[in-house]
């Protein structure tokens, strides 16, 4: 790959990296997914930027699955779709977690309003101490 190609792919990788980090910061992408993307993108940038490493990986991949250059577009599309789907999963997961938390608090408060619970337990403790 020539210098212009390396530069172009590095720019694309940095853009995707910033996108993923921003999604993770805003809580729209689960941090575990974020870590996987960051490791993969940084790894790809290293491979792209170091010619001997790129040659080795190219030879190795080509031996396993010879593919045309068009595959790069398919790969890019898949990556975007993957981030999008994981973002939606994270958003739904966050909403579910918030519902579970609110429900837990509401149930605890309603049980506290009924006779019993902590205050009664504390009174019993005080009686025991007396």
């Amino acid at each position, binding site marked *: 790959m020539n210098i212009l190609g390396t530069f172009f792919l590095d720019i694309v990788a940095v853009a995707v990296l910033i996108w993923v980090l921003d999604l993770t910061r805003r*809580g729209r992408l689960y941090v575990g997914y974020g870590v996987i993307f960051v490791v993969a993108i940084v790894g790809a940038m290293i491979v792209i930027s170091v010619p001997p490493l790129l040659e080795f990986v190219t030879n190795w991949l080509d031996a396993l699955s010879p593919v045309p250059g068009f595959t790069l577009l398919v790969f890019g599309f898949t990556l975007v779709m993957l981030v999008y789907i994981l973002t939606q999963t994270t958003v739904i997961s966050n909403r579910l977690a918030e519902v*579970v938390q609110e429900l*837990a*608090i509401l149930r*605890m408060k309603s*049980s506290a309003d009924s006779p019993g619970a902590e205050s009664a*337990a*504390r009174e*019993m403790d005080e009686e025991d101490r007396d």
Partner: protein
Amino acid sequence: MDRILVAIPAYNERATIGSVVNSVRANLPNLDLIVVDDGSRDGMGQVLRDLRVMTATHLCNLGYGRAIQTAIKYALVEGYDALITLDGDGQHDARQIPGLIERFRREEWDVLVGSRYIQSRNYASAPLGRRIGMQLFSVLTRIVTGQRVYDTSSGLKMMRRRVFEPLTRWHFVDFHAEAIVYLMRLGYRIGEYPISVAERKYGQSMYSTLSHLAYPLKTSLMILLGVVEAGLVRRRRGK
């Protein structure tokens, strides 16, 4: 400061939760106590009902960070002035908490962390894996905040009401180094109070083999993002 809530996040701690609750009640009789049952499947719920302790039960397991967040949300809406969290596995000694409260009040900390390493200032007593992790996060904290925190992963913490809102507004992994860095970057005062911790006798640690690899990566990323987020929050406040 008059209203303090003690919260114990617990998951599958049937063997120890009873003694932890009784110890808190005996040593802190004037404080309110809740347990956050993070979707336990070992019968811990029944133990808590028998103990007649206020329990916020997650219908499914959300993880330690979310359990802590539930306690903070409750403390926020119920108007508590401070929150103390301690683990449900029996590793923390409730007899040390009055000293923690006294130091917290006297030195006016926003968060005071019960620290296993603040006195020795080294990790010689910790197993190798934990030693590396503690060293990493302690150094990272110092780099991004200028203040070293020796025990970033302690479950025993006391926090003032003014940090409840920032801690529920953003998201954290386990409210460890990433939360400490985030709050420090927002200008809150965080200190350490020396404690001793017993070894776990029953149950399982929340960290599996895979999470020993994932935890440092996730926490490191959240530390980095926490610095950015805190900067953005401060900029918004300034406008």
